[in-house]
């Protein structure tokens, strides 16, 4: 049995030692001496969160299919172990081999949300790897970032040797082959970076210079190395069934946040909600075939022994074989002690019927995401859910026995008025009223309507990338206004309203649309103790605020500034499929309260058709 990186004394004095010992069922074991490339796949958050991430599992499986690569997992040590590792100078290790990550060839870090950025520096720091790409030596690992936040990699530019823009299944093997080739001929780190820069989808930040205007906006961003491309095009899997999926996911000993088999039914979304980054950057929508999913459902349940299976996608109701896959899962597995958990589906007769089969109606709740309180504002954000649909769905559900409804909203959306905000309370009230229309003897007790609002953050590659974000005070005033409105509702005792934290949202806004100057800010807050910012108990807003001053940066520049239509954005060098022209058109449609049809109704020329697949070619066989 392999020796662990941490001693028994340490493991017995920290919370959940099982986070650090590896050895789980389906963990890949390889002889480290007989592989050419050691790849550390890192999710910069705690084990239970990272192990729930589908993309990391897909890539772990994909890399390890190659005999010459050993892909291992790396997670952030929790704060208790972090302290011990610093005191005792224990280098950060990967779970599989328990070897220090500084010995690896690559560390791939997935960027799933902005507030994990300080944890990236923790990984490098504890890993005893220089924080700045420019300070790394020949023997240091190549640090590569990917995932949704890589669509604006600039705030992290200083810390990464390269970024992979797009879906991981496409050019990673080519990158690995170039690496081996370069190593074989004794090439340098820089030579490898140059080879990598020529691969589609790979962005090497040090090969670009950014010039600024006097007002702080970007004047130009130009390659300073002949191998670097002017535009980096995102990579995607054109035919989903051609891509390999996971066959034997690692089964954690401790309960991960996502403790179930997850079947990815499709990628991308046809809906075109104007606030949604995923809905834009993962275009075009591409489906897996029913047969492919059935095959993997069997394999995954057999190989993991999980007691639950779930579907993953941005909008499951749009999957053309939804009834087929849901009925298959219920018929095939329900009787075998496997729970079928359904993602949020559009509420209609079909979904209510299947939900009543797989859930205990008394305990479960229905979820709607109107996102905005009025039809006007829902038109602005292009959310095709109408009040009529919500009330009809709620009515059918109440008649079926449900009595709990959750409603999700956003505050601070562009063009928002007092009426739109009050609409959140009014819509919640209407849902409750629908319940009380049912004769008393047929009701199942009281109804509970829980409305939650998050604060809107404009994201790159969305029509709202030009939008002004609200300030913290504005956000809170909006939330108070909604709360007061709830107090005036007739059925207020059946209604509940929650809102998110505002401090964190402002920072998310800075990081989401940040430029290269933000690297210094991230480093400054990290050095002053910021870590696990996405965990409210660890988030230190004062450290961030002080760092803005120290670094001479103004958060308002990134959040509340009005951006002109011809401004050059830090992420403009990326071709994410959706063109800037399309986004501009959509931004203007939003202001004009004009609804845009979804991809199945009509092609609106977003630009993603250039990838030659998915919904764009659905009816053209």
């Amino acid at each position, binding site marked *: *049995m392999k020796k*662990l990186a941490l001693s*028994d*004394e340490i*493991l*017995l*004095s920290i919370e959940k*030692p*099982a986070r650090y*010992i*590896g*050895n*789980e*069922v389906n963990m890949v074991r390889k002889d480290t001496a007989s592989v050419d490339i050691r790849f550390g796949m890192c999710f910069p958050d705690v084990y239970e969160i990272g192990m729930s991430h589908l993309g990391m599992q897909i890539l772990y499986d994909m890399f390890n299919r190659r005999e010459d690569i050993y892909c291992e997992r790396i997670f952030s040590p929790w704060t208790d172990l972090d302290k011990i590792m610093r005191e005792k100078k224990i280098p950060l290790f990967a779970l599989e081999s328990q070897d220090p990550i500084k010995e690896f060839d690559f560390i791939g870090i997935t960027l799933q949300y902005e507030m994990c950025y300080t944890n990236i520096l923790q990984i490098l720091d504890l890993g005893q790897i220089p924080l700045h790409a420019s300070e790394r030596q020949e023997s240091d690992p190549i640090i590569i970032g990917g995932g949704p936040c890589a669509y604006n990699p600039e705030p992290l530019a200083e810390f990464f040797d390269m970024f992979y823009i797009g879906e991981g299944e496409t050019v990673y093997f080519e990158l690995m082959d170039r690496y081996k080739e370069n190593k074989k001929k004794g090439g340098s780190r820089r030579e490898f970076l140059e080879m990598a820069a020529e691969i589609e989808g790979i962005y090497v930040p040090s090969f670009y210079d950014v010039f600024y205007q006097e007002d702080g906006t970007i004047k130009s961003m130009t390659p300073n190395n002949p191998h670097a491309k002017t535009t980096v095009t995102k990579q995607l899997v054109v035919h989903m069934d051609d891509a390999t999926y996971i066959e034997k996911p690692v*089964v954690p*000993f*401790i*309960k991960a946040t996502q403790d179930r088999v997850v079947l990815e039914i499709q990628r991308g979304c046809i809906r075109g909600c104007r606030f949604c980054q995923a809905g834009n950057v993962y275009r075009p929508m591409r489906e897996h075939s029913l047969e492919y999913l059935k095959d993997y459902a069997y394999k995954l*349940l*057999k*190989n*993991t*022994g*999980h*007691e639950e299976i779930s579907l993953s996608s941005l909008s499951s109701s749009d999957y053309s074989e939804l009834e087929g896959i849901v009925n298959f899962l219920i018929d095939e597995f329900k009787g075998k*002690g*496997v*729970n079928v958990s359904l993602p949020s589906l559009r509420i209609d007769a079909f979904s209510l019927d299947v939900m009543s089969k797989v859930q*205990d109606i008394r305990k479960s709740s229905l979820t709607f995401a109107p996102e905005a309180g009025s039809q006007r504002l829902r038109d602005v954000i292009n959310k095709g859910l109408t009040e009529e649909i919500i009330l009809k769905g709620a009515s059918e559900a109440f008649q079926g026995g449900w009595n709990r409804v959750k409603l999700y909203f956003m505050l601070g959306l562009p063009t928002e008025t007092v009426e739109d905000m009050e609409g959140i309370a009014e819509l919640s009230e209407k849902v409750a009223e629908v319940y009380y229309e049912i004769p008393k003897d047929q009701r199942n007790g009281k109804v509970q309507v829980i409305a939650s609002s998050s604060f809107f953050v404009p994201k790159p590659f969305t029509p709202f990338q030009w939008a002004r974000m609200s300030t913290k005070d504005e956000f809170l005033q909006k939330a108070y206004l909604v709360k007061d409105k709830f107090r005036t509702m007739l059925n207020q005792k059946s209604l509940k309203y929650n809102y998110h934290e505002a401090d964190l949202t402002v920072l998310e806004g800075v990081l989401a649309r940040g430029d290269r100057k933000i690297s210094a800010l991230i480093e400054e807050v990290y050095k002053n103790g910021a870590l696990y910012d996405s965990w409210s108990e660890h988030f230190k807003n004062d450290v961030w605020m002080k760092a803005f001053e120290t670094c001479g940066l103004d958060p308002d520049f990134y959040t509340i500034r009005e951006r002109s239509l011809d401004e050059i954005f830090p992420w403009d060098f990326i071709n994410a499929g959706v063109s800037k022209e399309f986004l501009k058109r959509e931004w203007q449609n939003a202001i004009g309260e004009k609804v845009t049809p979804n991809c199945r109704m009509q092609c609106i020329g977003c630009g993603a058709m250039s990838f030659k697949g998915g919904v764009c070619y659905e009816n053209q066989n």
Partner: protein
Amino acid sequence: MKIRIKFTKQGPVKFIGHLDVMRYFQKAMRRADVDIKYSEGFSPHQVMSFAAPLGVGLTSNGEYMDIEVHSMTDCDTLMKQLNDVMAEGICVTECHLLNDNAKNAMSLVAAADYTVTFREGKEPEDIKGFFEGLLKFKDQDHILIVKKSKKGEREVDLKNYIYQLSVSDNKIFMKISAGSADNLKPELVMEAYDQWRGEASPEFAYCIQREEVYGNTGDEANPVLVPLGLIGESVE
């Protein structure tokens, strides 16, 4: 059909807590295609119960669990099916078909064997003196320890719960009371010795391993301790 399974817990998996071991075996049953019985109700769960929870950090050669199955080929096949899907360090070593009216393992537990060794670098300087003292400690008429609980401090006599305490090859062996009535933790015996000799061992000095768990087939006055794997077995 009721089945009793004996398994080991060695190496890194000693850091997995009892609840997670239960979850682990529920998944293992499904991976191994064991035709296990599920309870009735809206969220059915496997009919499975464990004899005695093992503390985090302890290793074991003698863990027991009971399951009920609808069908199976034979005990050897079941053992192989399970061992094909185990994580390193967990190994099924015995499988017994029980009488239908057999009591479950948890209710049978009366005693357990443990061995205690020193973690590397944490041995006492005078190891011989340490062991000699331990034997003197054991031979007292009363083995008293002050137990701290929420209700305050109280003195307990461990004498009646320590059935055997011996030393060989620099290894301490103890057979002590276990189960729902009078559960004695091996750590407490070592703590009592530390209290008695007036000297504390360094933190994490002891490596404790459970070796076997027993039921009592005699009565309270004349106990007959038999390993759980040999109680209630059905003779085919």
